[in-house]
């Protein structure tokens, strides 16, 4: 058996009384405590920020869902029945708005601090309308979106297709 393997055996550690590491034990243990505490604090802060982000997203989602359901039931864009949305009315207020007054009226009841875009599309993807306060909407600051299912009445032939109303809330100084 070589000398190296003898020195590395367990008995050499337990019977070694030179105490080479003894004066530094406290420093090593303190370093381990500090590292453990830093990891604990990092985990706590990461969990809190994740929780905060999720609760903010849920809160904004509720607001977006409220607006989406409100728009789905907005009387001026209703079709021949209350549960239908008229494609002609959407043509008038979607960008670029053909009927400026109706477009202004659409956003009038909402708070001026609220910045959002409404996207209405048929499920087959054949038709899509974008309604926004601004003529050139930007999607840079989108933070949350909510959708509600609707039925869209296309044209005068009473052709009804399923679709969705999606509201995208944008980040502003309040959110």
């Amino acid at each position, binding site marked *: 058996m070589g000398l190296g393997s003898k020195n590395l055996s367990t008995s050499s550690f337990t019977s070694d009384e030179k105490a080479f590491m003894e004066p*530094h034990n406290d420093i090593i243990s303190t370093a381990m*405590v500090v590292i453990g505490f830093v990891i604990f604090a990092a985990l706590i802060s990461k969990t809190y920020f994740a929780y905060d982000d999720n609760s903010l997203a849920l809160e904004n989602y509720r607001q977006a869902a409220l607006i989406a359901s409100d728009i789905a039931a907005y009387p001026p864009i209703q079709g021949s029945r209350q549960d239908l949305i008229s494609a002609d009315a959407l043509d008038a207020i979607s960008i670029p708005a053909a009927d400026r007054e109706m477009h202004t009226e659409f956003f009038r009841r909402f708070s*001026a601090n*609220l910045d959002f875009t409404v996207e209405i599309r048929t499920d087959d993807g054949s038709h899509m309308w974008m309604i926004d306060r601004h003529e050139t909407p930007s999607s840079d600051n989108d933070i949350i979106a909510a959708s509600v299912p609707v039925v869209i009445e296309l044209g005068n032939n009473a052709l009804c297709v399923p679709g969705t109303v999606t509201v995208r809330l944008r980040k502003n100084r309040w959110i």
Partner: protein
Amino acid sequence: MKVKPVAEKVPSRRPVIPRDHTTHICTDERAWVDLLLSKVALILAGVIILAALCHLAVDAGRMNQDRQLEVIAQDFRSAIDSAGRDSYGAGGKNYSFDPYEYHGRFGSGLNVSVSGEYVTASFDEKGRRYTSVKPLTYKTLPFSETEVRKELMDAFSAAGTQGQPIPAPIGPENLMEFLATLGTKEKNLNISIPVHIEKTLIYTYNLNGTGVKELEYILVYQ
């Protein structure tokens, strides 16, 4: 023969300091400085860890209070927004802060205010103010129906009702600007009394006087 006593050489008690200090430090193996430095470092590390733990505990308490204020403001905002979604004539509703006042940790120190654009819930403790602000979805006024009509009557000589719309030269945009200015001032609410929330309509002629427009507003008052 008298022997002359020889003076005995007494060794000096002062340590012999070698001329070369560097050599002295390098050869001194007593390690007092090492021991002192490591102990001071340990004490410092212990103090910093304890301070960080205390800070974490205090911050956790503050975060909990912030969270509760967020819930209060969010709940109140939802009540106002749901009234905005109701159609006109559905009737108003009363909102109460009782659950937060009696079962929450804020007690009577809770302050809630509402303006035309947002609701605020705040709490003062030991000189520190915790605040949560939530923007409202619909146009809101912190006034009762009577107060709004009086303001309109004073400003435009018309109450803005269906039978007495705001006259033509003013128009919807100027009227909305006037009402937005009216709603900028926060109104503090007494959380012991229920808050009444209802939707109202303000009628105004178009700029050219050809038609009448309805403006929807949510009224929040006590």
